[in-house]
């Protein structure tokens, strides 16, 4: 097999790897924030807010990421906002991932008995305080392992940016296969993705065993 493409496209590869990592990390931060907000909306008890949260989660989860990315890519310029592919990718991935993260966080929070919230509120805490100091720390262990899985998905899903010339790892394969055999390029990139995702996956397994008592594989 001919791996000489690594020499020709070295710079493109490093750029791609860096973009995959940075877009995934950025989207993780944003989707955590957005996901938490949506989760809180859903359990807020206020009908309109909960309804909005539910609609958001259901709509985003049931539509393809590709459509969402294209939408952000083409719809924003139509209203005069022009963003780089990197920014478009970060926004698209954040929106998509937030709908999954919202569900993870909601499940975690709801696993904490209702009485605790009531007790915290009656002892004078505000809703936000009670959430931050009482509920979330307990839900943490239940939330983190599935969050890890979502992060793995995020890294994998960032490959979709290739359809808008996003400049990440999968786009690198498009560049490299212009003038090279495809098999070595894809095998190489597959190994790189595994190097990114498998350690995360092992960490998730470890946390699941440690915190959730799940049986090891």
């Amino acid at each position: 097999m001919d791996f000489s493409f690594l020499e020709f496209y070295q710079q493109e590869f490093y750029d791609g790897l860096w973009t995959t990592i940075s877009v995934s990390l950025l989207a993780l931060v944003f989707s955590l924030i957005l996901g938490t907000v949506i989760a809180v909306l859903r359990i807020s008890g206020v009908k309109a807010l909960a309804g909005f949260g539910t609609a958001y989660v259901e709509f985003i989860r049931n539509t393809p990421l590709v459509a969402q990315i294209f939408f952000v890519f083409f719809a924003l310029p139509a209203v005069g906002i022009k963003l780089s592919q990197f920014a478009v990718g970060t926004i698209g991935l954040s929106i998509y991932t937030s709908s999954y993260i919202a569900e993870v966080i909601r499940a975690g929070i709801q696993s904490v008995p209702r009485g605790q919230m009531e007790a915290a509120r009656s002892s004078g805490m505000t809703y936000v305080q009670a959430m931050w100091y009482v509920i979330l720390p307990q839900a943490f262990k239940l939330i983190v392992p599935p969050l890890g899985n979502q992060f793995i998905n995020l890294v994998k899903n960032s490959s979709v940016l290739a359809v808008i010339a996003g400049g990440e790892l999968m786009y690198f394969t498009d560049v490299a296969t212009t003038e090279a055999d495809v098999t070595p390029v894809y095998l190489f990139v597959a190994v790189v993705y595994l190097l990114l995702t498998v350690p995360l996956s092992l960490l998730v397994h470890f946390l699941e065993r440690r915190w959730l008592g799940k049986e090891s594989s």
Partner: protein
Amino acid sequence: MDFSFLTRADIMKTLLDGLLVTLEVALFSILFSFICGIVLGTLRYTKIPVLSHLAALYIETVRNLPLLLIIFFGFFAFKEWGWELPITISVIISMTIFTSALVGEIVRGGLNSVDKGQIEAARASGLTYVQTLWHIVLPQALRRMIPPMVSQFVSLLKDTSLAVAISLPELMHNAQIVYSRYYNMTVPLLIFVSLVYFVINYSLSQASRQLEKKLAG
């Protein structure tokens, strides 16, 4: 914002053709990954040396890779190796390779959730290991697998849109063909196509929830 395509029979026909390809690919992929997933999951559960390890290796590798990479691989690399496959088949194979790993994990999780005491009891009453698996464990496990399995298949259905990257004439690609001609329809078409995916996937999820309730009650 030009929504006039809604009244144009020609464009709706193009989109419908795309939807049929999407459904065809999804249906076959679901069928095959269900079968392969059950085999993989059961192999991993049984702890038969070598076989269960191979299944584990397969599952862990594939589920840590981006689906888009597998789709590219299934299309370009197979061609490079001289395997003649129509594009639809190559996408079905790629989707099956990917989804069967995830279904395998769901199956293993379902099997593990069955009380070990029942297995011992069944074995003690004279059933063979295979009989126990088939008559006692699988039926109970299957019931628990339905919700995650359906959500996996919902993912599969929307992920068929990734094949837009290799010009499979599915819904997303056909929408692109239309909006590359009528630029003003770009954003409206993306919204419309998303709604189509949503309606199908949401109905699927709701149906699965009903089924779940029925089985539980």
